[in-house]
């Protein structure tokens, strides 16, 4: 049995630990349809078509509709599909954990991340340390919170606003900021992204240039994306339309609007939601350098 097959045992234990964590915290586990008429349109995410419908790129649209129906704490572990995403940390079909709560904003999710990581670390019996890419990490430590603006100043060599304007935001994240985060041994919460990069998040205040969105990093590996939810249907529709406009400019197909979601959105309570890549989490806890090592089959092996 090779290392990959041994990793599958740890993977199964991690998923069981995630379920136990949420169940004991009174989150309802749900399964929502994987094949849907419309995902939330995003500038850089391309869904797979399925005979007039689409495979989900994230369960968020259905999850939020459940919040509109009165549910208060939800979680789901499901497969998601995104076209043309394949690399050492990407698979076109991957496993996502999403959880939502109506009793807090994005800061509540940040605490959830800390307690979840600690819980998984205890189940994996790693004695509080992980060896990942030659570095010793502390998954149970309190997460360092740093704003995206601070991160750009400290590690990016440029003002965040400027990077958004001149289009170098993503490149600087990848070439300068993420490698700097990799040198930090505790979890890192990169928070308050520019509004242009947070289509579904609530803004920090009316007309604020930043949104209540954060990303969880550990060992320089991007694990989760969470935010305080936008609940204004007009503004949400506008943001979706802007995403479609930008897609048009790149020659990408326009994506349909998730109409039932938009019509129910005014009934959605204030809430916060987060999406975490389970494959990436397993990479950290197994020390795998490549996502191929933590899945049963890669698409190329089929």
């Amino acid at each position: 049995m090779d290392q990959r097959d041994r990793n599958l045992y740890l993977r199964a234990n991690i998923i069981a630990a995630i379920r136990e964590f949420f169940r004991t915290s009174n989150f309802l586990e749900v399964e929502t349809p994987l094949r849907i008429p419309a995902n939330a349109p995003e500038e850089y995410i391309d869904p797979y078509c399925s005979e007039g419908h689409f495979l989900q790129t994230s369960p968020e649209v259905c999850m939020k509709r459940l919040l509109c129906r009165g549910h208060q704490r939800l979680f789901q572990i499901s497969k998601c599909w995104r076209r043309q995403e394949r690399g050492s940390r990407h698979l076109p079909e991957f496993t996502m954990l999403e959880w939502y709560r109506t009793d807090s904003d994005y800061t509540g999710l940040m605490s959830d991340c800390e307690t979840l990581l600690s819980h998984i670390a205890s189940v994996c019996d790693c004695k509080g340390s992980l060896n990942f890419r030659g570095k010793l990490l502390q998954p149970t430590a309190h997460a360092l919170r740093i704003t995206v603006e601070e991160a750009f100043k400290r590690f990016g060599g440029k003002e965040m606003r400027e990077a958004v304007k001149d289009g170098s935001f993503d490149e600087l994240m990848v070439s300068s900021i993420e490698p700097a985060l990799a040198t930090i041994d505790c979890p890192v919460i990169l928070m308050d992204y520019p509004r242009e990069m947070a289509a579904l998040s609530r803004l920090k205040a009316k007309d604020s240039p930043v949104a209540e969105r954060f990303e969880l990093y550990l060992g320089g590996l991007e694990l989760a994306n969470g935010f305080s939810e936008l609940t204004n249907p007009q503004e949400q529709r506008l943001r979706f339309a802007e995403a479609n406009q930008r897609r048009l400019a790149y020659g990408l197909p326009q994506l349909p609007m998730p109409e039932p979601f938009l019509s129910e959105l005014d009934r959605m309570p204030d809430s916060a939601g987060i999406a975490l890549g389970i494959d990436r989490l397993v990479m950290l806890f197994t020390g795998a350098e490549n996502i191929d090592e933590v899945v049963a089959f890669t698409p190329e092996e089929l």
Partner: protein
Amino acid sequence: MYTSADLKKGLKILIDGAPYLITAFDFTKPGKGQALYRTKMRNMINGTMLDRTYRSGETFEPASLEERQMEFLYKEGTHYTFMDQQTYEQVIMEEEAVGDAKNFMLDNLKVDVLLFGEKAIGVTLPNFVNLRVTQTEQWAKGDTSGNDSKPATVETGYTLRVPPFIEEGELITIDTRTGEYSTRVKG
């Protein structure tokens, strides 16, 4: 024409007129951001390394390289001349491009020459070559000093370590991949 989605390790592309080999590649997509294709590349002519990050939808010209079997004819100064035995075409390569291979090449050796258009930029040797030892210390039979190897020079001027029983004038086989003695050629 290649696009960003075709980029991968081992691909050869043209940049500013020179052929580059992609030695490392990663696809990445920072949270909700655009896809970025990160490459490390080596200039196949002068060996310089390049780091480049590309976006979706960029296009690349393939580097047209060809490997042709040729015969090494002779060396004159720093010029090495090779001949295609089918077409009798001759190409000249600078010593720098020949690299370490020069230690193992005797006239008439058959090799694979890497061509970029008309320009010869590299040579691949057969895994083993036979070369004659031109200089080495004699082995005194009965010498039990315990040395398990001694230095020797072969006819190309290359020096290596050989077993103590190898004499001057003997033919030995050298592994060109490691530069090490492999075996003695009998007869």
